């Protein structure tokens, strides 16, 4: 297992460019998650890494060696596929041992290594089973063992858990993570599930429309998103544009903010998570509040199990807040978000600095 370095990579189909100047380094023994919405180019990046797609520009290094122009079979990067991609006419042992057989390793050695791998992925005793007789979770573990058998330089996983049901997914997720820690392989995992990325990866790269938006530890990505897109994608589901246009605020609603980064002159986008909102059903006059304060009315509440997700209407805005009790419709409530939980970004059209009405107090 070695370090993977991607330098200024461009990939496209025909004239359409899918990846723009991607640069990324995965350190030896590190698990990096590529996270992004559908169509952002995650899988294209994996295919380019594995040699299934030609690259237009840039370089891929594994250790000191450049592999950009090697055919797929010479790259020593193996992939775990979303569909498992096991060969149904072979047994579990034949599937796992295929790569070793291709490398012309002695049958005896193959048998020992397959046995050891089956132990690692907890499938001992299933050597002679047909893969079609296995469950989804077992199949994905066979696929993992098959990819690890040839001791690849880099292991890439293309949404390996998305075909599994919720419970099995959690189990396999932990198994892959534990295995990665135990064997220390360099790996790149593609997913669109932010929780999966946070739990499994040492570092996360957020991809959007063929560009990397942010690379960092799960904590950094979660607590300090570098762009509005990252904040939104990482679950900051409440959003408002500052300063607020008078047409967006109703008679009875008030939005006030006190934050060092926000002034009436600066146009910005504000994002925050519903779990960071503290909701109080009684309206209290508390002028000395820092952060964001919103007065509004309950639209509806949905039971989530642990608590309720309350939708609060404030003029033309709707905000989500978590609260321990169910609240009847049209209850007047106050929402408060502490300053540190606000993610503030410049508005894309910052240049047009048109003065707006002072319908809201700052």
């Amino acid at each position: 297992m070695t370090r993977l370095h991607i330098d200024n990579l461009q990939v496209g189909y025909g004239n359409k460019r899918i990846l723009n100047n991607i640069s990324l380094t995965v350190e030896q023994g590190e698990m990096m998650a590529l996270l992004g919405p559908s169509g952002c180019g995650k899988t294209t990046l994996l295919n380019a890494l594995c040699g299934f797609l030609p690259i237009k520009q840039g370089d891929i290094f594994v250790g000191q060696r450049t592999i950009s122009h090697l055919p797929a079979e010479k790259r020593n990067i193996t992939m775990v596929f979303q569909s498992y991609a096991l060969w149904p006419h072979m047994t579990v042992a034949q599937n796992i041992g295929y790569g070793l057989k291709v490398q012309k390793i002695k049958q005896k050695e193959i048998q020992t290594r397959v046995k050891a791998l089956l132990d690692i992925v907890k499938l001992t005793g299933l050597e002679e089973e047909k893969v079609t007789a296995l469950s989804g979770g077992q199949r994905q573990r066979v696929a993992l063992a098959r990819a690890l058998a040839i001791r690849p330089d880099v292991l890439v996983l293309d949404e390996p858990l998305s075909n599994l049901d919720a419970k099995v997914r959690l189990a396999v997720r932990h198994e892959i993570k534990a295995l990665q820690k135990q064997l220390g392989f360099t790996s790149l995992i593609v997913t669109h599930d932010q929780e999966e990325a946070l739990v499994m990866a040492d570092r996360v790269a957020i991809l959007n429309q063929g560009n990397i938006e942010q690379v960092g530890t799960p904590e950094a990505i979660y607590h300090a998103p570098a762009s509005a897109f990252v904040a939104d994608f990482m679950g900051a589901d409440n959003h408002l544009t500052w300063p607020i246009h008078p047409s967006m605020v109703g008679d009875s609603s008030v939005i006030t903010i006190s934050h060092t980064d926000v002034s009436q002159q600066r146009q910005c986008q504000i994002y925050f998570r519903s779990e960071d909102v503290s909701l109080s059903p009684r309206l209290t006059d508390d002028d000395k509040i820092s952060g964001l304060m919103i007065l509004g009315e309950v639209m509806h509440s949905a039971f989530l199990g642990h608590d309720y997700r309350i939708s609060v209407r404030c003029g033309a805005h709707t905000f989500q807040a978590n609260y321990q009790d169910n609240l009847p419709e049209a209850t007047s409530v106050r929402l408060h978000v502490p300053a540190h939980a606000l993610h503030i970004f410049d508005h894309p059209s910052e240049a047009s600095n048109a003065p707006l009405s002072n319908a809201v107090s700052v």
Partner: protein
Amino acid sequence: MQQKEAQKLWLIAPAALMVSLFFLYPLCFSLYSAVTLDGALTLSHLDKAFELYSKDMLFTVIIVLVSVMLLAILSISIAALITLSPFRSVVGILGFLYRLPLFIPFIVAAQMMRTFLAKNGLMNNAFVASGLMTPMDTISFLGWSGIIITFVWKQLAFSTLLISGAMAALDDAQIRAARNLGASRLRILFGIILPQIAPSLGVALVLSTVTMMSVLSVPMMIGTGTPTMISADMAFRVDSYGDYHVANALGLVSYLICAGLAWFYLRQSLKDKGATA
């Protein structure tokens, strides 16, 4: 309830009637005619058929087997190129070209081959014109080799269509998985693709066999008279002697040859299924 069941049977009656009238009745009648004379069971027609035409039967079997083998090799190669080749534009052209014979009837194919393969045909003329041969060196491909060439040319489209369809239906990720484990394209073809498409290959070859056994125009137009294929002998018995009994006996023989191949195929595919179950 029972009344309803009976009503449902009426629904299939027209189709069943058509099948029995135009397929089952002629088949049974032909089998009956092959083994009876004036209502009494006899093997004399079959004896006569073997006595006169056993060489042609052997010729037919050899022609069909050689054609089927060539078909298998060629159509697997074309389908494999289409599935595995990295040169997508070449594959596009190949994918279009191989289908053309599908739309050409056997009799037209036979006529084309006659003018192409003859001693003074298009192929030899082209060689002579390009200076590769003198007119003295040219040989005619009419005869057994011409029959094989025509059969393979015509059936190639059909069997390649079935085989490349089966290959395209395989999950692309299976091929990619093998490639990033280090397998070459040839190894993937033999180790990953062929074992999985064997049933489709079997169907393509059995259906092609049955088609070749039943074609009359090709042996008549390209064959040199003797030995010839069973279908030409049957036509000859009927046309020249009005001898339906021996013609039907020959039909029975070709039916048995097909049935033998079909049995072999079914046994093989059942064995494979037994292994996977």
